[in-house]
């Protein structure tokens, strides 16, 4: 599988904002948050088409999300995931003495994941944070 080294950004989008107000168990939230906005040229390089799954791995974990074409390319080697449980799996928890983890500019590797599934919210909570 081809892999690409990228810089991971997380942030707000208007869809994420609306999705969280519709309810975090809603389809709208899942559709707006469990995604990764990519540069179309990066997608071509990886052989990934719109709505296909990609796996993003950082030093702190990995997550599988849906790839979507960025509406504001070019931004080669830069991927964007809206704030949410899917992005939180892979951001840098170290605060360097400030209290603030690094949610932006995290070095990451992205690869196609056609056989892996994007988890639903309940599945994600069960898999990663299960109550003992």
């Amino acid at each position, binding site marked *: 599988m081809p892999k690409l080294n990228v810089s991971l950004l997380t942030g707000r989008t208007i869809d994420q904002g609306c999705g969280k*107000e*519709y309810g975090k168990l809603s389809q709208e939230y899942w559709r707006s948050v469990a995604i990764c906005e990519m540069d179309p040229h990066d997608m071509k390089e990886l052989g990934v088409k719109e709505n296909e799954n990609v796996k993003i791995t950082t030093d702190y974990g990995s997550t599988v999300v849906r790839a979507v074409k960025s509406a504001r*390319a070019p*931004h080669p080697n830069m991927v964007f995931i809206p704030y949410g449980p899917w992005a939180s799996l892979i951001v840098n928890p170290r605060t360097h003495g400030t209290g603030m983890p690094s949610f932006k500019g995290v070095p990451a590797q992205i690869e196609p994941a056609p056989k892996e599934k994007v988890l639903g919210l309940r599945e994600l909570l069960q898999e990663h944070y299960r109550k003992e």
Partner: protein
Amino acid sequence: MNMPTIPSVTCPVCGSFCDDIELTIKDNVITDVKNACAVGAAKFLSYANPHHRHVKPLIRKNGELVEASLDEAIRKSAEILTDASYPILYGWSCTSCEATRLGLELAEEVGGVIDNTSTVCHGPSILSIQDVGISTCTLGQIRHRADLVVYWGSNPWSAHPRHVERYTTFSQGRFQTSAWRGYVSRVAATLTKKRLLRAANLILMRDVPAPPEIDRRLPPTLLQKKRKMIVVDVRRTRSAEAADYFLQVEPNKDYELLQALRLLIRDEEIDVDTVAGVPTEILEEVADVMINCEFGILFFGLGLTMSEGKLRNIDAALSLVRDLNYRTKFVIMPMRGHFNVTGANVVFTWTTGYPYAVDFSHGYPRYNPGETSVVDILCRGEADAGLIVASDPVAHFPREAVQNLVKKPLIAIDPQVTPTSLMADVVIPSAFVGIEAEGTAYRMDRVPLPLKKVVEPPETCLPDVEILQRILHEVRRLKREGKA
């Protein structure tokens, strides 16, 4: 039949606090919303969806959340907090100042750590403001006077959708006119360009469209004596498209760019051709635009606080504005995102002396972000219980912190079903502040505004203030009994 319309409702979503919302209400249900942005409208129209809100208290028994009485949930919460030796009390940005004040009293009573969401938001900005100082003003000043608006590492179009329209470039001020028309003509030009590019892609049968050419030159509008907007960001956002000029900085290089601008504003020379991916001659022109404005404002967002450098980026931004004030009038303001997060900082400060990350474990307030901030405490695995009020750390904290948070007894006071409430051991449903409960909240420029109660909450959902009062009462009773 005439349905009652309630004017001038304050929107309880982001730090912009749009207070011109009109709600139409029928049979205790909001049926129409006027003037709100997409997110505000989504909140007012969807908050009551029964699938996504809690109406009954829940307690985890044998691994499952089961319905319980409110008294039972309050008692269980008080027991968890009194049994813990180092509990964290976190959230407070989506509730009223009155509730936050009670939260601080509770934190002192149980000897825990109380922190608000600025710890993962503008915490570094606060640290830096304490170090450097800030020259700032209220949003009304900006609306009426600012002729240069700079958004740095901030995407108001997504996070504060009506900010540009109400307070900055597109607002009609007393001394500055709206730049809306210029924007409309720019959008028309951009659309034409996109159409031409699409046609070219079709004719040349390109499967991946050729990237649009980026013109780095400064547009002549930036040199005119009228309202203008510059966006500095690592990627082209929708806000960047609305701006007169977009300056693209390489990720994690904001500090270099800010310091380079400081050099230029002090008339010093830069020996390199590019800084953070921006040609020096472009930077010189941007510095000229900044110096030549009459009243400039720099709004900075999480692009600065969350990237490498964190508070040092803010140091550079605050210092840049300080330097600019030797040449013209310039102010700076953090783009506080979450509803009443500013209010949480204000109440924390007037109560304990510190704006966030306050540790009461010694019996008096201590403040040392990095040590007493909630993400650090969780990553070190030190907290032995959690009370989360009006916030969702399970969705937004890094995995390591969440894993340690959910391992220990967790109480969630929240009206909505969230990942945090789904992982909690006790869930107490509350009323939505600003819709079903009154209160006071602070806008991003520290202007306090009253929040209205426009509909009645379900009978089982009390306001946060009442829930916290009852927990505090129960904690005190348990402590008295324990001593006796």
